[in-house]
């Protein structure tokens, strides 16, 4: 630890940490702003394809499925995007034809808000509970350790202590390969 803490002392850890944290925020900001080129039509079509379920296959999106209907739907998606429709318009088109369950995830509206909301609320509630529980669990342990330090060792325990020390030494040495660090008796 010595060499590392020497280096740390020279570079003042506190300030370095704040600088580093700032750099992190700056970088992520840059990333968001310089967010690559906008997606191509094909990429958009694939993303929509992953958001639509194949109505005749169990549990597959139209991108995954090789069914005839899925291929037709994929073609329709590309046609519509090429003719200028937005993502929402394409999705709405299929919902009209096949009902809500053609969407791979519930839309964020109406009753389906429950789908999205419950996880968020549930986890927030759990975090709040955890925080309360943690606060309740904390107790002052200073009193306990003082009592332990003040305890005196019974006299007739001495010979047993010596034997225990030898066994402990063996246990610790067995691990280290070097003499164990049994602290001297209080």
């Amino acid at each position, binding site marked *: *630890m010595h060499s590392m803490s020497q280096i740390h002392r020279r570079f003042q850890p506190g300030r370095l940490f704040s600088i580093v944290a700032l750099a992190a925020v700056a970088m992520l900001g840059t990333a968001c702003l310089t967010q690559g080129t906008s997606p191509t039509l094909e990429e958009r079509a694939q993303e929509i394809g992953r958001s639509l379920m194949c109505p005749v296959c169990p549990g597959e999106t139209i991108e995954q499925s090789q069914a005839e209907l899925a291929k037709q739907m994929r073609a329709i998606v590309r046609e519509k995007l090429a003719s200028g429709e937005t993502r929402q318009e394409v999705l709405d088109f299929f919902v009209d034809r096949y009902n809500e369950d053609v969407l791979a995830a519930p839309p964020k509206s109406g009753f389906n808000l429950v789908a999205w909301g419950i996880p968020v609320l549930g986890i927030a509630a759990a975090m709040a509970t955890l925080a309360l529980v943690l606060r309740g669990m904390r107790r002052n342990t200073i009193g306990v*350790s003082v009592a*332990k*330090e003040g305890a005196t*060792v019974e006299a*007739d*325990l001495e010979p*047993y*202590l010596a*034997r*225990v*020390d030898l*066994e*402990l030494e063996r*246990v*610790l040495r067995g*691990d*280290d390969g070097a003499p*164990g*660090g*049994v*602290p001297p*008796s*209080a």
Partner: protein
Amino acid sequence: MPLLAGIVLAWISVLVLVWPFLRRKNAVHSDDDPVVEIRRRREAVYEEARVLHNDHLLGDVPLVEYEPRFQTHRVLAAELLRDEERLQELAGRLEEEILEMRRKVGTEG
């Protein structure tokens, strides 16, 4: 043929299940032996001390905390060792007394 195999298997199973009731009662199970129980607890204390020592070496536990906790383990192990040997002594003396009584009954009988 399958019926025969089934009967054989059933018989084997019955024999295996009935055997504990038929064999001679053996000595006290070492599981219930309180001496062994205390020894096991002492070994558990050693294991905890070992883990504590390792944590201290790795920097997880500072010296101010390590020393008193290690002492606690040490003292506890010594107490357990003392109790263990006292129990053993007691058990030994009990056995001797029983042997004595058996001999007395034998000579008088």
